[in-house]
């Protein structure tokens, strides 16, 4: 054997040997928990757009793991209408341009419903395809208020409070905390760009934005932005990002520049436990963040136990996981109510008749309902809650100053 071949063989062997180091957030599977008869017949195919690269990859695997666990759970309990549920997984990599090809592929493979876990901008791009194919598509993590609007919104659904509700919640928080002027720091990812506009419009009604900073999502240093914000002398700082390294760097830089100025965060960061360690020790102390996951909600705690049992002790509960799980369950409920998968109109009618669904996100009193003209599930603002971080860079509990009411 020649030397290059020896090296290649060694490299492959090393790669295979070390692949056990991988930690992509996945895990095991739900073990059958009931003695229900095994589902038979043609599987009910559910499409899933799950990003493993791109901006959405920081949270998509969290939702995707819960969806996979939910499917395993349903199948272990007899399936839907006696038929097994099967996932078809594709990825748009958070790129709207790839949306049409990926969704068309899911539809051609026979998906009777789709969970669009990627960014809202991707789902917005494929609305005409969804409308034409008449495939109910739920965007469980999407918060773009216009996503379900016409045209081409008949088969598109979202679950949680849209970003316009965030404005109402934060304005209430600012008012309660006596904050009159804020500095705004956001990343430049397509997802955040699409969300920042409506949120800034909402903030314009309750506070003055004295500095508005936009930085590349791949930034490795945000000291310049933090210094500019300090010069603007805000009462508080609002950070909006896809989370991960960007938000960790932002809070590290802002904390060192202005340790006493209150900071608020909207985005994924509050549920990205892996990302908290990226921030400078202590820099997240007193950071107020909003999220849909409220671990004082007993339904959420139940789901956490279930998913931990299914996915292993490394599983960290996040609202993405709960949203993915809720999206799957609402979709499967609609298929069950429709009595099959042959009539897309019947599945849509069943979706539109969903009322009082008790989700695993939000506060305990939070409910989701749909009608033919209301395709956003949230029934009230209490799908959201405000929390704070402690000095150890982990969440310390609900923010005592203000909470949105049900």
């Amino acid at each position, binding site marked *: 054997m020649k030397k290059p071949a020896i*090296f290649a063989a060694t490299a492959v062997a090393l790669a295979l040997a070390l692949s056990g180091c*991988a930690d992509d957030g996945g895990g095991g599977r739900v073990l059958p928990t009931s003695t229900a008869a095994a589902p038979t017949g043609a599987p009910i195919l559910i499409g899933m757009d799950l990003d493993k*690269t791109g901006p959405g990859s920081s949270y998509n695997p969290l939702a995707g793991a819960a969806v996979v666990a939910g499917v395993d759970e349903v199948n272990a309990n007899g399936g839907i209408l006696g038929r097994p549920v099967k996932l078809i997984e594709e990825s748009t990599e958070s790129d709207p341009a790839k949306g049409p090809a990926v969704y068309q592929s899911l539809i051609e493979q026979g998906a009777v419903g789709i969970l669009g876990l990627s960014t809202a901008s991707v789902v917005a791009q494929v609305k005409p395809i969804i409308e034409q194919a008449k495939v109910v598509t739920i965007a469980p993590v999407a918060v773009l208020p216009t996503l379900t609007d016409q045209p081409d919104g008949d088969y598109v659904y979202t679950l949680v409070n849209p970003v316009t509700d965030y404005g109402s919640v934060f304005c209430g928080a600012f008012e309660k905390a006596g904050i009159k002027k804020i500095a705004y720091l956001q990343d430049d990812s397509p997802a955040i760009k699409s969300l920042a506009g409506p949120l800034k419009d909402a903030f314009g009604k309750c506070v003055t934005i004295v500095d508005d900073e936009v930085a590349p999502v791949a930034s490795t240093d945000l*000291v*310049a932005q933090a210094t500019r914000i300090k010069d603007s002398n805000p009462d508080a700082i609002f950070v909006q990002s896809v989370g991960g390294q960007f938000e960790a760097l932002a809070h590290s830089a802002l904390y060192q520049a202005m340790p006493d100025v209150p900071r608020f965060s909207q985005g994924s960061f509050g549920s990205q436990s892996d990302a908290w360690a*990226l921030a400078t020790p202590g820099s997240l102390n007193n950071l107020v963040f909003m999220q849909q996951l409220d671990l004082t909600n007993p339904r959420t705690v139940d789901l956490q136990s279930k998913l931990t049992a299914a996915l292993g002790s490394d599983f960290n509960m996040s609202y993405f996981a709960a949203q993915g799980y809720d999206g799957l369950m609402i979709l499967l409920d609609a298929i069950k109510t429709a009595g099959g998968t042959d009539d897309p109109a019947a599945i849509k009618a069943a979706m539109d008749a969903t009322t009082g669904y008790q989700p695993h996100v939000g506060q305990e009193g939070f409910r989701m309902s749909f009608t033919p003209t209301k395709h956003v599930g949230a029934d009230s603002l209490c799908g959201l809650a405000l929390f704070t971080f402690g000095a150890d860079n982990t969440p310390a509990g609900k923010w005592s100053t203000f909470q949105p009411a049900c």
Partner: protein
Amino acid sequence: MDHVQLWFSVVEQACFFGLLGLAYMLILEGAGFFNFAIGAYAMIGGLAAASFAKSMHLPVWLAVIAALVLAGLLAAFTEVGVVRPIQRRSGGARLPALVAVIAMLFAITQVAGLLFGRKQLAGQQLLVIDPLQIAGAYVSGPMIVTMALALVSFVGVSVWVRVTGTGRMLRAVGDNRPAAQLLGLPTSRVRITAFVIAGVIAAFAGISYAAKGGVSWDRGLGWALLGFLALVIGGSGSWWAPLLGGLILALLQVFVPFYLSGQFSDYAILAIALIFFAFRPRGLITRQVRI
């Protein structure tokens, strides 16, 4: 000088970019081409150290040593398993080797994602201290480590190429390998030494910089380009030239967002790169040859 913190940030980034540029320069001098896999070595260093410490629960120092060994082996493999066979088949041409190392950069990136996962990992703190307050600025442990590493590396390489036989042979081998072989110089040993030292320096830089805000599998390409530009701007006339190039890049990275907007920093980097490619392709510090 109102904003001392900005200047510390400039120095930290200059040191990081300069270290990557120094790694490029070692291979440029020893093998005569730009090894774009430098960015991948830096990424692998940071990612492997973080992963070894987190997943295998190794002590930080052991995780760092293991990551440096891995990066050194990877750099050696680049020379022995990729560049050398290709140059042997292409009669010593540099373009095929250049293409091969770019492919190597992407291959390492994908394998890193497979081995260590595609999540961002927190970097390892090599110096755990309370942040120092200097003139109102905040100086963290990772910042001190990056600056110290740059100082040690630049001084070390400068001394190595003057004092040791292998170091002195480095430029001869890179400039004209056939002539060096005719003279009986151990060209293979010199080249592989350059690759390994470059790989270890890049990996150490990646480890120290990762402590600032984490590291992920897809960082290699960006770091490869910044290190390359540090060398292009600084030039190759002095072993300290990449540090000058890194300083100019860092000034842009910090002050363009401060005076204009964070969205313009990439354009500023592109502009400075185009200016140097067009008007001063040999960089600011060039080698003076006395005739």
